[in-house]
């Protein structure tokens, strides 16, 4: 193993106090003294906050004044600040990859209780790093070009907002939405808290902007089926489900719907959660974007029997937009960055049997009530129960499926506020007595507490207690009146509250197919199942996959303002990458030492990115640096040790192993 002569290497060792995070848990001075004595170490120092500007300047001065050519920083995790210190070292004129970090905070100070042991471990880890960095070679970060296009997955408010920002910035955006129209959950809401402005009024202009925007290619009723490649160079396969209507030809005149042989709408309308009816050929909702109808093969007679008179086709004779032969298509696109905005799904209250959802007709979920309240909804804004009568007494139960060991442990953050909003709207529409059964009213955010006071002042009954049982009111079981049994914990009395209508404020949870989507985009999931952000505080919209960003409720429950803020942030970060035009990739790619390679081809099949090929003329293996991701699998498998890996050379790792095993 050829190691440089010790006198050439002058190592600067820096250990950070990180306030008291590190200094509080281990003896920083002892580590400095120990490392100062190691071969090759020219300078060893500790400092309160190395990642601060003065801290970085300290290092830069030392490099110049003491002629240091290697830097070891013992502080937090390299995943946090390695880039920071490398940039600082580079500015001081030293190759950034002569800088190496030692994780003595997350892996040592924060997780060990015995101060002596933690100090010994810090010394060992530092020794390992010092020996390793002595063998580091100068490297250049690899600049990988970034495609200018962006893929936005999910057409809810998050996807829409992100797409618009990017498109307005002049970038080409592919917006892929699984439903026939964009709009997501927000399109179903009536009003939005706390300002009570109508959801459609603030959403539809953005939707039509998306529909009309030259830079946005909108693919609704489509799904991403495969993603390959890496940041800057993703090639994505999108499958477009057949609408049996040609998008470009249809102008949304809806003649075909009238002409459909089903005179009246008979089938449950998914958009209105089954409360309203629709025909086989239908438009999800009036402001749907693109304003293009679609035919549901499950209910259209032509698909069942093939003998329908196809009156719809006649109605669309001139434009001939209807095409029963339409088949599923797949498209390949090349994008530089991806924004995941796949949203959430509401908790299915059937999982809590004692609320009687699906058993008692007068029990509704909050989303269904949003449709009832909505002027464009199935009842034209009239809150009419399934038995046709308006309710006099309405109970709203908070935290359905949230803050509960048996369902979801987390608080869904938005239910209290939308429950108050529903309470206000129901009272406004029907004048009914409204009871809100809550555990804690949580109103974080601007204008929320004021909204709570305003709604309370309108005479809502706020009962602090979780509804324990729901059963038909023994007094008149006939017309669906329900009895809610609940303890008012502030009064300390069990109440039996008769209501005509029960609204369940269901919480937000990850979509059912989260695991499948996670694998496609190489993401990670947190313990509750939402996509895991790279860092909860410092990188909330970046994911673990480089160049893939998260926005909206797919990353965790949040309200519309936060969702839009995140969408903006994700768009900004994507834009940052695109504008820069390249991403810097750690130069940790593998390389074949040609004179040593025997051409035994053992490495070739191991590379999942097919980066290794046989140089035909020389019968030697060759690694295409652009394709190589730096996993190092081939390096470990090369039987004659002829493949090296930048930044993770065999001798570097071996010296690190020797170092960490020394006894401090």
């Amino acid at each position, binding site marked *: 193993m050829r190691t440089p002569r010790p006198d050439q290497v002058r190592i600067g060792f820096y250990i950070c106090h990180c306030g008291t995070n590190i200094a509080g848990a281990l003896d920083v001075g002892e580590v400095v003294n120990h490392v100062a004595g190691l071969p090759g170490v020219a300078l060893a120092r500790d400092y309160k906050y190395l990642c601060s500007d003065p801290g970085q300047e300290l290092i830069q001065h030392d490099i110049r004044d003491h002629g240091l050519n290697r830097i070891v920083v013992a502080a937090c995790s390299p995943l946090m600040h390695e880039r920071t210190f490398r940039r600082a070292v580079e500015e001081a004129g030293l190759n950034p990859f002569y800088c190496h970090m030692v994780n003595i905070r997350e892996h040592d100070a924060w997780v060990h209780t015995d101060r002596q042991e933690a100090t010994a471990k810090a010394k060992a880890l530092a020794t390992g790093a010092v020996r390793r960095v002595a063998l580091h070679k100068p490297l250049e970060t690899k600049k990988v070009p970034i495609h200018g296009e962006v893929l936005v997955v999910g057409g809810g408010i998050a996807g829409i907002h992100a797409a618009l920002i990017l498109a307005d910035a002049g970038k080409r955006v592919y917006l892929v939405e699984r439903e026939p129209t964009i709009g997501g959950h927000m399109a179903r809401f009536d009003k939005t808290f706390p300002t009570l402005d109508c959801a459609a009024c603030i959403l539809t202009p953005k939707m039509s902007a998306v529909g009309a925007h030259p830079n946005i290619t909108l693919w609704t009723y489509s799904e991403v089926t495969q993603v390959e490649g890496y940041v800057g160079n993703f090639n994505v396969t999108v499958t477009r489900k057949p609408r049996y209507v040609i998008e470009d030809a249809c102008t949304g005149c809806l003649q075909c719907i009238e002409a459909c042989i089903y005179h009246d709408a008979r089938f449950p309308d998914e958009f209105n959660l089954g409360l309203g009816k629709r025909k086989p050929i239908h438009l999800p909702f009036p402001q749907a974007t693109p304003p293009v109808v679609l035919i549901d093969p499950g209910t259209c007679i032509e698909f069942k029997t093939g003998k329908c008179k196809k009156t719809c086709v006649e109605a669309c004779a001139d434009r001939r937009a209807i095409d029963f032969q339409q088949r599923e298509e797949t498209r390949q696109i090349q994008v530089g960055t991806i924004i995941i905005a796949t949203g959430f799904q509401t908790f299915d209250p059937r999982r809590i049997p004692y609320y009687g959802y699906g058993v008692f007709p007068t029990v509704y979920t909050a989303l269904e009530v949003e449709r009832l309240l909505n002027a464009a909804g199935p009842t034209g804004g009239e809150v009419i129960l399934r038995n046709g009568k308006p309710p006099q007494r309405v109970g709203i139960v908070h935290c359905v499926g949230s803050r509960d060991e048996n369902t979801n442990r987390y608080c869904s953050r938005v239910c209290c506020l939308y429950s108050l909003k529903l309470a206000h709207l129901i009272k406004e529409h029907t004048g009914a007595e409204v009871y809100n059964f809550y555990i804690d009213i949580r109103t974080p955010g601007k204008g929320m507490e004021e909204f709570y006071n305003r709604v309370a002042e309108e005479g809502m009954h706020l009962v602090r207690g979780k509804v324990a049982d729901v059963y038909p009111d023994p007094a008149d079981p006939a017309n669906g009146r329900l009895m809610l049994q609940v303890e008012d914990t502030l009064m300390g009395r069990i109440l039996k509250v008769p209501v005509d209508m029960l609204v369940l404020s269901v919480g937000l949870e990850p979509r059912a197919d989260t695991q499948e989507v996670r694998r496609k985009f190489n993401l990670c999931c947190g313990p509750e199942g939402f996509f895991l952000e790279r860092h909860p505080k410092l990188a909330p919209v970046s994911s673990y996959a480089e160049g893939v960003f998260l926005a909206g409720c797919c990353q965790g429950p949040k309200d519309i303002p936060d969702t839009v803020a995140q969408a903006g942030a994700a768009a900004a970060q994507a834009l940052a990458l695109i504008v820069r035009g390249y991403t810097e990739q750690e130069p940790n790619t593998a390389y074949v030492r040609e004179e040593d390679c*025997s051409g*035994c*081809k*053992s490495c*070739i*099949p191991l590379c999942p990115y097919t980066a290794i090929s046989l140089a035909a003329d020389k019968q030697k293996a060759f690694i295409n640096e652009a394709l190589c991701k730096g996993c190092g699998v081939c390096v470990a498998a090369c*039987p*004659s040790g002829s493949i090296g890996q930048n930044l993770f050379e*065999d001798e570097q790792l071996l010296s690190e192993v020797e170092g960490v095993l020394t006894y401090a």
Partner: protein
Amino acid sequence: MNPTSKPKVAFYWCASCGGCEEAVVDLAEDILNVVEAVEIVFWPVAMDFKKQDLEAMPDRAIAAALVNGAIRTSEQEEMVRLLRRKSQCLISYGACAQLGGIPALANQFEREEILRYVYQEAPSVINNSGTYPQPATPHNGDTVTLPAFRNSVRALDQVVEVDYYIPGCPPTPALTKAALDALLAGRLPPRGTVLAPDVALCEQCPRLESKPKDLSLDAFQRPHRTALDPEKCLLAQGIPCMGPATRSGCEALCIKGNMACTGCFGPTSRVLDHGAKILSCFASALAPKEPQGIDQALAGLPDPVGTFYRYSLARSLLRRKRGPSQTQHFIRGNPP
């Protein structure tokens, strides 16, 4: 040219089989020029010089000493230290001296186990009085001595400083000739070099083209279980062939004999542990993904130590088996 001016050369063999001596004899006609060029002052297999002759020589009198065989007994250790003292250039000749060779497989067993089995428990031995070879046996007032039997087998450079290595079991005549010529002409590479190509055997293997670029094995085969295709790469047929991890230089003799390479030329200079390296290469080439499938695929390698460290156990990172060995189980007939 009077004999004294010719450079003196010595050959010696420690725990060896004499195959390396044969390899020197196999220089055939070339041995004549060698004999012309040098004066062999010590070569037990072919010349009657005695230990005292060696001891009588002044230090560093021998230009080059080629020592083969691993170090197993104290006498061998003594001889190599003596040869080191007497030679300017000590050359490790053959796999045993370089890596421990096949005798080093004994490092999987303890000293007492070996002696007890060889002299007591072997089925052919009748030794009711329980005699064992003794370091000293008295004989009317005098004693007859035997060297000590070390607990571990060592490669040459684990006992004395070694200048060059000529690999192989045995080294090929061509390799030996090239080394001797280089020695005589004084054009020797830096100390510690292995005098053989530093590239794996596949480069010289006639079957390299037939090795697929997407080899993915479902199982390792045992040579006597499959009909061996004389043209196709043996590893591609599932036979564990150490070629990819072993130095070239032997011109793939075993493969020309239609059998797999067993790794006698040792690893390339960049490899720290021959066995671990080939294990990594073989395991990475497997196809199954879950543990049971993998274990089934690996059933074709029942003896990892014997296959991967056949010639290099003494120079492996772990050097020998630790703690009480498994032999007791063998002796009572139940496998470990």
